[in-house]
């Protein structure tokens, strides 16, 4: 059921009448605050998918099986009892301890219930860095997942256009926010400068643009060659 165009949406509309207006949280406990009731619902709906539940500084974190993220988010979005219709953020965390797995983090908001949920999936080191994309559910995940791929190299399976976003298409130094990436980059300054000077400033159209058929014939020869060779982005 999709709302008709221009239907106003009021946050808190699914809360029972008489619910007090939200207030600034005070005296938040480091651990062991109130658990978001959604956690129990996820447990009931997806048996065995919940690996861990943390409440840190009043925010509930649910660590779920990474293969089931897609269906869980889909259910959270669609279920009338949850209505997590707003995706605040998609990002990832890598710890300084190399043994610790990477974490992919989704911050979801249910405006109708005024709830906030942090969903996490763990990607142990040595396994392929892949999680399902939530792009089919939230269009807002488009750039956030692309940025996450760009910065961490995490593949969001099902994203239709997972290209680098902030770094350029031909960036070869790796994934900047990974802990093994030095602050100044992998290449020396001399090498970075050499590459910048050697780059053809005209060949900056992306592959997507190169495929715009009518423009193809107008493109410089080297761009056409890149398109034909099926050049890959990133590593």
């Amino acid at each position, binding site marked *: 059921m999709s709302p008709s165009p221009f*239907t106003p*949406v009021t946050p808190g509309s699914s809360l029972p009448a008489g619910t007090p207006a939200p207030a600034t949280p005070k005296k938040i406990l480091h651990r062991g605050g109130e658990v978001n009731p959604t956690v129990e619902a996820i447990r009931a709906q997806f048996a065995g998918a919940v690996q861990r539940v943390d409440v840190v500084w009043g925010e509930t974190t649910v660590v779920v099986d990474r293969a089931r993220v897609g269906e869980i988010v889909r259910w959270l979005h669609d279920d009338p009892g949850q209505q997590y219709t707003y995706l605040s953020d998609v990002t990832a965390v890598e710890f*300084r301890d190399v043994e610790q797995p990477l974490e992919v983090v989704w911050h979801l908001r249910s405006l109708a219930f005024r709830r906030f949920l942090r969903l996490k999936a763990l990607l142990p080191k040595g396994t392929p860095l892949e999680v399902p994309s939530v792009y089919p559910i939230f269009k807002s995940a488009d750039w956030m997942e692309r940025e996450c791929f760009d910065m961490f190299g995490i593949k969001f399976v099902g994203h239709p256009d997972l290209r680098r976003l902030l770094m350029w298409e031909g960036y070869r130094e790796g994934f900047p926010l990974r802990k093994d990436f030095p602050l100044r980059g992998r290449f020396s300054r001399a090498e970075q400068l050499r590459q910048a000077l050697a780059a053809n400033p005209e060949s900056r159209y992306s592959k997507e643009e190169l495929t715009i058929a*009518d423009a193809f014939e107008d493109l410089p020869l080297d761009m056409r060659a890149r398109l034909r060779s099926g050049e890959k982005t990133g590593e």
Partner: protein
Amino acid sequence: MATIKRTVEVELSTSGLDAQGRPQRVPLAVAEDGSTVAVAAPPSIEPELEGEHMLINIGPQHPATHGVLRLVLELDGETVVRCIPHIGYLHCGFEKIGEYRQYNQIIPWTDREDYLNSIGNNVAFALGAERLFGIEITERCTVLRVIAMELSRIISHLVWLGTTCIDIGAFTPFLWLFQERENVYALLERWVGARLTTSATRVGGMAADLPNGWTEQLQTFVSLFPKTLDEVDRMLTRNGIWVGRTIGLGAMTAAEALNYGLSGPMLRASGVAYDVRKDFPYLDYETYDFDVPVGTNGDVYDRFLVRFEELRQSVRILEQALRRLPDGPVNVDDHRVILPPKSKATSEMESMIHHFKQVMEGPRPPIGESYVAVESPKGEKGYYMVSDGTSKPVRWRIRPPSFVNLSAIPKMVEGHLLSDVIAINASIDIVMGEIDR
């Protein structure tokens, strides 16, 4: 408000090309009885317009892109068929650098992302860090931060409105609004010593308390500013050109706006009354009396109306904050995060140790993570911080509102005319410093 249909009927004065391929100019003749006289049969050599699409590149350096944004547009005539945005020209790796800095050292970086809202970012970051440290700030600090956030909202909206006017072709409001912006900057300069890069907060407090006479100065601004708003209101809101250039452009329905993750005035213009200050309050915003303007059509004009009303609401909040501003300390009484006074650091052993630990090592939060979002002028601005117990965050993530808002630009511009792309792009209120970080 119903969408106004714009129809322009133009009588072509050219019926085709002559034998040399030049346009054939045929004066339209009218017979004496009023009927049009047939002047000439259209020549048969008139060429068919081919359905060629054109690739046009706007930016990265273009005066109407509000920064180094590059849009590659596929045009059918003047209509945008496809829009491919490119960002990253200003990418500086703020989040990477943050992993090598102590929490207070990150605050100057927050100035430089959304530089129209620098003091608001300082406050937002401090709130996030304080949750991670488990600090409750003082009452005076809370009210001071509300004042800071609303002043910064005013600055940002003024710049947005001024530059959008310029983009659409109106120059006068720009001057009026920038004069008011200068007044706010004068206030900020007296308070924290800087105009743009304020770095005004510290974890646990503020860098400086208000100087003497500052509240009176703010009171003067608060009483005079609505007059400028009224003038601009008269100038723009019912201005035929302004309305004609903004109505019906880039419309997003409520469901689309939510799905595309829009926030702030962009989301509220589409009819979603989501305001972080009301729904997930911070800084005791629930105790202030203010309204959240909500649009109905989600087009550029509604975004203008929403932002304009937010300026008035910010003035209301400032008035209330000025009335309730309590006396008392600004910084928390906790020398693990706030430096002890210099006189004590040189005379007392314990203070000296605190001073030494803080300067050499930095305050250490317990292991944990926090995501604190505030209502920045652009939308939901979140800081996600993860601590492993050391004095530097493992991960410092900025949730940039204009980044997510901009990601919907293909949806908004496709189907519109090339000249409307400028108006729609302006209506998103982007700051590339925040988008690229």
